[in-house]
């Protein structure tokens, strides 16, 4: 599919990203079972927790982004993937609404939450993680607060069926050269459901 800097073997280039989420959406993705074989036939998986690529590659066709934007690492990756992807999909309730990841926002700034979890917790020796781990942003936010999104796939996690429907529709739209909003219109109302 790609004709820019990508591999250019006629296949779609698909990536996934794991921001502030539980990886349940990725588990649901693996739940696609034999469709994964079909998917491998029409697309290359070029980035994500399921590959061993360190930096986000250029010229990606579809990126499924799981999780809310909750730390500096997430923010950096979100900008990088937006810059290099044609169709960014907000993948699952955390990316779409913040969901469980955003529960910490009720406590305001991250410090009170860190205190409660790491310092007041009896089993963690009262230590705050400060090295290696990326710093938390003031608020955990849905992905669309940070970057423009082309399609939303709610669900916690979205069912394998919903993932299949969405990927198939988007892939077909890209192959046909159709605009994306038109491709996802027909997914509603049954396919858009929180929780």
């Amino acid at each position: 599919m790609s004709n820019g800097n990508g591999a250019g073997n006629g296949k779609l280039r698909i990536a996934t990203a794991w921001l502030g989420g539980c990886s349940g959406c990725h588990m649901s993705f693996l739940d696609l079972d034999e469709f994964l074989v079909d998917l491998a036939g029409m697309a290359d998986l070029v980035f994500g927790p399921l590959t061993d690529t360190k930096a986000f590659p250029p010229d990606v066709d579809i990126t499924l982004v799981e999780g809310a934007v909750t730390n500096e690492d997430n923010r950096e990756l979100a900008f990088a993937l937006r810059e290099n992807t044609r169709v960014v999909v907000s993948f699952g309730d955390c990316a779409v609404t913040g969901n469980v990841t955003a529960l910490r926002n009720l406590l305001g700034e991250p410090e009170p939450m860190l205190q409660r979890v790491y310092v007041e917790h009896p089993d963690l020796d009262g230590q705050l993680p400060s090295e290696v781990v990326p710093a938390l942003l003031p608020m955990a936010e849905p992905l669309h607060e940070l970057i423009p999104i082309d399609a939303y796939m709610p669900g916690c996690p979205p069912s394998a069926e919903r993932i299949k429907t969405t990927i198939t529709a988007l892939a077909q739209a890209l192959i046909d050269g159709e605009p994306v909003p038109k491709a996802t219109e027909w997914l509603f109302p049954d396919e858009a459901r929180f929780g």
Partner: protein
Amino acid sequence: MSRGNGRPSIPVTIDGQEAMAYEGETILDVATRIGVRIPRLCYLEGLSVWGGCRLCLVEVEDDPRYRLSCATPVVAEMAVTTTNWELHNHRRRIVEMLFAEGNHICAVCVSNGDCELQDLAAETDVDHIHYDLQHPDASVDASHPKYVLDRERCVLCTRCVRVCNEIEGAHVWDVGGRGSDSMIVAELSKPWGESPSCTWCGKCVLVCPTGALAFKGRAVGEMRHDPAVIDFLKTARDEGKWYERQEAR
């Protein structure tokens, strides 16, 4: 349903469908009777009309304003459109605002899968929230031995307030506060468990459209509401008729 005596005598058109309405029927009454679904949240058959959620607004021909179908009585020759792109879009924005002003985390809610807000989001194509999420610091009242009130999930539909006052006759609930600080309060702001007038009947829990009111001890997705029980009780009381109905779990 407020149905007048005698035969239906008022001709109306709803989404191109012609129907005869009874004197005093609202647009929503007639639409429901002829099988046209109008989205609604605060309205509940058997309770008084509150008209607060604004989801049931409809277009009436030659009327410059949208009308609340739950609170507008039909008049002869009325032509109503219950849905078009604009109405759909208004409803979608209303549902998004409801999501934005609470902490609606479906994934960890007792009512996941049995929630009218969740259903409405699907019905009105809400796939994300355009507005800034408010993350209000609302409180949980778990002082009642049998039930729990989680204000973070409350959409202020006032069904609990109305059912407690009108059907049970206890009037435990009220809306306290103003604006974005509005919240459901028991006994003019006491812990629910200390309420001397609560009869433990649980009707408020059964009619709650979201997970705001729930039975204690239910885990994620385990709560089942039964709002239709109110019409059943009302009919029994007013007409002395106990009709057959499927009970919720």
